């Protein structure tokens, strides 16, 4: 087994069931084996490409512009309080 599914799911904050752990272990190990085919390609001294059209350091003026109103920004929140998003406490959780 190459991938520790329970640990990875925790990192990604994904709730998964024990039967899913088994299934994903098999499938993800297969995917890892599959992509290891890339080792056949010699990439010594090759620079990685992350931006294909070559744009770099795209800057703009840092000026305030009209944006969403508070009401609009909160319009999809399931839980709100006094004009804020309300979230569960995260400190002291463990």
């Amino acid at each position, binding site marked *: 087994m190459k991938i520790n599914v329970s640990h*990875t799911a925790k990192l990604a904050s*994904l709730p998964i069931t024990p039967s899913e752990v088994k299934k994903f272990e098999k499938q993800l190990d297969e995917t890892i084996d599959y992509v290891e085919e890339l080792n056949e390609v010699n990439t010594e001294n090759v620079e990685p490409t992350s931006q294909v059209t070559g744009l770099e350091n795209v800057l703009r003026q840092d000026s305030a512009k009209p944006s969403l109103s508070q009401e609009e920004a909160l319009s*999809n929140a399931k839980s709100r309080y006094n004009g804020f998003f309300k979230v569960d406490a995260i400190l002291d959780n463990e």
Partner: protein
Amino acid sequence: MNNLNIKQAKEGLKNKKFSSVELTKACLGRIKKVDSKLNAFVTLTETKALEQAKLSDKAIKEGVELPLLGIPIAIKDNFSTKGIRTTASSIVLDDYIPPFDATVVEKLKSAGMVLLGKTNMDAWAHGSSTETSDYGASKNPWDIKRLPGGSSGGSAAAVAADETVAAIGSETAGSIRQPASWCGVVGLKPTYGRVSRYGVVAMGSSLDSPGPITKTVEDSAFILDILAGMDEFDATTSPNPKGKYLQNLNKDIKGVRVGISDQYFIKGIDKEVEKVVKTAIKDLEGMGAKIENINLFDPKYAIDVYTIIQRSEVSSNLARYDGIRYGFGRERFAEEAKRRIMFGTYALSSGYYDQYYNKAQQVRTEIVKDFEKAFNKVDVIIAPTSPSLALPLGATKDAAMFGEIADVLVEPSSIAGLAGINIPVGFSNLGLPVGMQIIGPQFSEALVLNVANMYELNTKNALWRSKKPNL
């Protein structure tokens, strides 16, 4: 009149042959008649569409001229639409109503479109079938026991079935071209950065490219004229001047150098696909194109590069769905999204970054260089879009890398950010559409569209062009 293309619909509206309300009603009527079979739409915006059509008719009477005034359009459900539910076909976003429009939507609205509704897709655009949609798979209009392809499968099916005049899709690697191929319509994947990604539910941020799905190449050029250009909300949009895509069509293609690579007629390719595409290439040769055999980087490595890059970027992009600001919690992610998030999380995790993501980005450089080399010798590259015809429903079951493998022929050009288009070139014996892709260098949309259009013009009387899905 729902079977009209944009050009014909515009002429009809201009000459007062029909109103936008009549045209919109014709499309809505068609949707009501056939969409229970096709499931191309996730959300229908009937009331808003009729209101907009009424306003368009008034504007037309007043002499207002806008490129899409009164024309019904369907939009893939990963484009944010202000006040209209946007789910990306995932129940994580089941009740999400965006407070803003994607730039693409904003541009189409300014151009006067009538929005019919939001089309089905693979959830989060993860797939090439629509089978990962939480709202059920869409069906292929040419055979409803088959898949339309994906992820923009709903848009492609809606256009093929004449439920709409045109549609918008998005492609990360194949998601416009492959469903267009399987449904027998025109699908343009613009160069990365040619069309703004702002407001599109992000999948693979270094790859995502929105584009049109249409009935003709002319319509494709017409919509690209509206969508292309820089956007202050998407820093990757290019300052490279945009072309006049519609105006540039109908240029002679005599002497245009077309590269053909044996590597793209891969082992296991459907024999009918191979035959029909090779006939189309012969047709282009007859129109004066110069066909040259070229060698390209083996597309099989593109599957690996794409799998790593896309899943890594997915894991990062989908981290934002926490159910706090909008949508529901992460327990609602279905299997495919979970699989991709976990693979990406693994590939980016400490100790593995160099082995996977960095390695994939290095091979990406090799693929970019390989295309640059090829485009020194030829102007465009032509290949089948998909190695198969539309596959039966259920084809993706337990195929953990279905999308990545099905899209082997479109991944290399997506990884390099190139322009590409799928055009229909005929049918199999069973009556399933065959698609061919024309790939050009970055920002060569004008050239790619022109070659596609010349093929379309020169084959407009071909018998197969008169076929329509029987629904």
